[in-house]
């Protein structure tokens, strides 16, 4: 196995631009240093810690759901104590199942898949990768995290209100979400808290996106042209532009939803609805309007979750293949193309929603067109592995695993993008399999790759590789055992969002559900390896050098962890692109972006 010791040497000689250190004296006091810090690195770590907390909650919720789906009559130990109303005697009620499902989806999409790969890693690394001292607006950056944290608290509060959390799913379709208590338990205060939480979350992400865009455009170091930005920077930059547009639509949508619920307006509720034997006091609204607003955000959100993964994999892969990524300009062009197209496809969530059936083709064609850049990037990753001398670190394995699960998840998109096939597969487990593979598992693999790769930079210590490889191997097999069978369920017509399968035609599928449940519990348990590694390495891991992976981008030109102002009073001058692998540089087969020497191809 062609592995190298993780610590081949210190700094490469680098060009620096002397600048007066301004404004970024080390903060004093615990609160200013660790809690209300304006340092993008601390804020990035806070986002990652928030995502870690959220993912534990989200994963436990998915276990509870899976247990119930496999054995609906079985009591789950401890659940009765957690919610006496939702799970009397430990057996969850149908409405509690839906509540857990709603919270699982919301927590995972917003507080894990958006915060970790985008806000977390992006915050820590983007300023360093462009050679800046900090974000353009450090105070707004701090506010963005604390607003996001507030949103998280508001959402979690829904668990503790008397009627319990909302049950209308992470998509919160109106009128179920808009008419209040009459629509069922959890649709009272719980649903209002949900809408408030998501609205607050949007504010946090809008501030973050503005910061990312401004920092990328205005604070790049000398020589850091747009073309020399690392792929990860490009991905975060593109994602922040997508986020700026997407969250600025979801925010007013949440405001309108809250107004419908508490102020008697009727944006999403038409006249003549009789719910719980009560004629609803609304008139003139449209349930499809909510769906359009939600998915106008919701589909770009998929790319907000996955594009950072694209960037992370494109950034990390060359460091371990020891050769340049294939087609670097094409990769960046594809990121941008995906960003643009992500706004033209939202209606593919609504083929059978009752919108004008003529518009199906309008949304179907861009949906298939967007698979072209995605396929190109995927093939370029695969082609980049060709003829490589792989250093199979855990980070590299998660990159390769990312490519595999992204292929698996992307392929099922070809089915769902076609309206005629969607008639049958819509709202089945085929869809659940598709989006879990493509934006759940693939995005998680991107996060894991980033975590193993950047941990030394963030905490100054190495993670344990042996534990990491076990984590990868078991997770990789586990996720396939969970999500591949869901395609088969979907083909057999198994509908989603059912708390129990009482229909005759679903009975034969229950054994397959039990298999998935066991695989989910196993894969979830495997994540303990990651958590142990994370906490152990944070305090006990071997010290990391500045550039343990022999990588090229600017974050590896500074110490691990970086000083408060990132480059210790100097500003790097960038001489090269980030893709200079397989060349003969002063310290090895690579050229750092800030290295003054020019490389010669080997």
């Amino acid at each position: 196995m062609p592995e190298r010791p993780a610590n081949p040497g210190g700094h490469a000689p680098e060009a620096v631009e002397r600048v007066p250190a301004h404004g970024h004296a080390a903060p004093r006091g615990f609160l200013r240093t660790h809690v209300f810090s304006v340092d993008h690195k601390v804020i990035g770590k806070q986002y990652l810690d928030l995502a870690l907390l959220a993912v534990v909650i989200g994963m436990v919720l998915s276990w509870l759901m899976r247990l119930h789906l496999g054995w609906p009559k079985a009591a789950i130990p401890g659940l009765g104590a957690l919610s006496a109303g939702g799970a009397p005697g430990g057996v969850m009620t149908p409405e509690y199942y839906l509540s857990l499902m709603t919270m699982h989806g919301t927590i995972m999409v917003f507080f894990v898949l958006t915060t970790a790969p985008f806000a977390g890693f992006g915050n820590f690394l983007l300023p360093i990768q462009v050679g800046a001292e900090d974000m353009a607006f450090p105070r707004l950056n701090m506010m963005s995290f604390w607003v996001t944290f507030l949103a998280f608290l508001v959402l979690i509060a829904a668990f503790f209100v008397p009627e319990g959390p909302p049950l209308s799913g992470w998509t919160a379709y109106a009128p179920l979400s808009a008419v209040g208590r009459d629509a069922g338990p959890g649709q009272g205060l719980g649903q209002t808290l949900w809408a408030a939480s998501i609205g607050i979350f949007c504010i946090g992400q809008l501030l973050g996106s503005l910061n990312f865009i401004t920092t990328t455009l205005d604070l790049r170091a000398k020589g850091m042209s747009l073309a020399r930005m690392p792929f990860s920077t490009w991905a975060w930059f593109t994602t922040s532009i997508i986020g700026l547009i997407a969250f600025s639509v979801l925010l007013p949508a949440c405001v309108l939803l809250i107004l419908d619920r508490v102020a008697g307006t009727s944006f999403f509720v038409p006249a003549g609805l009789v719910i719980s034997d009560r004629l609803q006091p609304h008139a003139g609204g449209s349930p499809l309007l909510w769906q359009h607003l939600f998915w106008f955000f919701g589909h770009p959100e998929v790319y907000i979750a996955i594009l950072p993964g694209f960037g992370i994999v494109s950034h990390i892969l060359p460091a371990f293949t020891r050769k340049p990524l294939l087609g670097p300009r094409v990769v960046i062009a594809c990121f941008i193309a995906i960003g643009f197209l992500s706004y033209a496809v939202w209606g593919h969530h609504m083929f059978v929603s009752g919108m004008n059936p003529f518009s199906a083709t309008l949304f179907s064609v861009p949906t298939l067109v967007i698979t072209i850049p995605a396929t190109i990037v995927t093939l370029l990753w695969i082609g980049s592995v060709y003829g490589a001398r792989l250093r199979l670190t855990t980070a590299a394995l998660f990159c390769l695993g990312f490519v595999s699960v992204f292929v698996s998840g992307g392929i099922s998109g070809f089915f769902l993008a076609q309206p005629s096939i969607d008639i049958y597969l819509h709202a089945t487990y085929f869809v659940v399999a598709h989006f879990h593979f493509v934006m759940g598992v693939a995005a998680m693999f991107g996060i894991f790759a980033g975590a193993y790769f950047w941990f030394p930079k963030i905490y100054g210590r190495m993670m344990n590789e042996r534990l990491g490889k076990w984590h990868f191997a078991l997770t990789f097999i586990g996720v396939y055992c969970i999500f591949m069978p869901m395609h088969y369920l979907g083909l057999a017509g198994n509908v989603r969002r059912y708390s129990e399968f009482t229909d005759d035609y679903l009975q034969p599928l229950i054994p397959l559900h039990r298999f998935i449940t066991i695989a989910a519990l196993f894969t979830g348990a495997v994540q303990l390896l990651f958590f142990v590694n994370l906490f152990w390495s944070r305090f006990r891991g071997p010290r990391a050098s500045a550039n343990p992976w022999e990588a090229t981008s600017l974050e590896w030109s500074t110490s691990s962890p970086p000083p408060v102002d990132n480059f210790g009073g100097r500003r790097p001058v960038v001489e090269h692109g980030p893709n200079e692998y397989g060349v003969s540089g002063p310290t090895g087969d690579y050229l750092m972006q800030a290295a003054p020497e020019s490389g010669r191809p080997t």
Partner: protein
Amino acid sequence: MGKLFAVVVTAITLVSAAIFAMHVWWLPPDISRLGAGIDHQLSETMVAAGVLFVLAQLALAGFVWRSADSTRPIRRFPGGATPMVLLATALVGVEILVLTFVGTKVWGRIFLAPAAPGALHVDVQAEQFAFYFRYAGPDGTFGGAHPEMIDEAATNFFGLDPANDTTARDDVVAATLAIPVNREVALTLRAKDVSHAFYVPDLRIQQDFVPGLVVPLHFTATQTGKFEIVCTQLCGLGHYNMRAYVEVMTPEAFDQWLIDQAP
């Protein structure tokens, strides 16, 4: 580790693909006139997507396998990025887009073409957590539906007003969707409370009920029998248990059933 990764990816790919190809879990038999188009479209896509899936995964596994040999020199992919761009555009851009345009015809026959003139009209109401079906009765005209007059206790599910509305008096309301075989059925879907959906896997048909809208839907069943209608739009706590049956009958049996149901 590299070779192990390659073996695992290959094994996962082949096992997954084999289960698809062998139809271990598959769609129930189609019992509709237009469903064959969907099944055909699905099969064609399965072949195209399956080939892409297997090729991409095996290429990844193969390249990782080869790169585990540290004596090989580092090499660039022959031709650089261009072949990948061309391949992706050819495979996805042409193949899948052509498939979609073909599929548009299938979609059009189901959702764009109007119901045939002789179709049987049935008014369907979805509510938490049941479906109700209404037939026009001997006069061939549906009575008006008034949400404010809905009274579940009096089994007035549609809010009919037989006292003042003569066309409503002979309307037949049932909890089962009885239909004659080989005759087109034109449904009008209305929601009493929140969004629901009408999904019959055997009929290859799915459509949401939208509160505030009356949504048309038509299909023709080609086999007699009893099939499940399930709700696929999250509608509240009883969502998982919201179902009804469609009973496809011979025309004679259907006529008799309609007479038996008359109020």
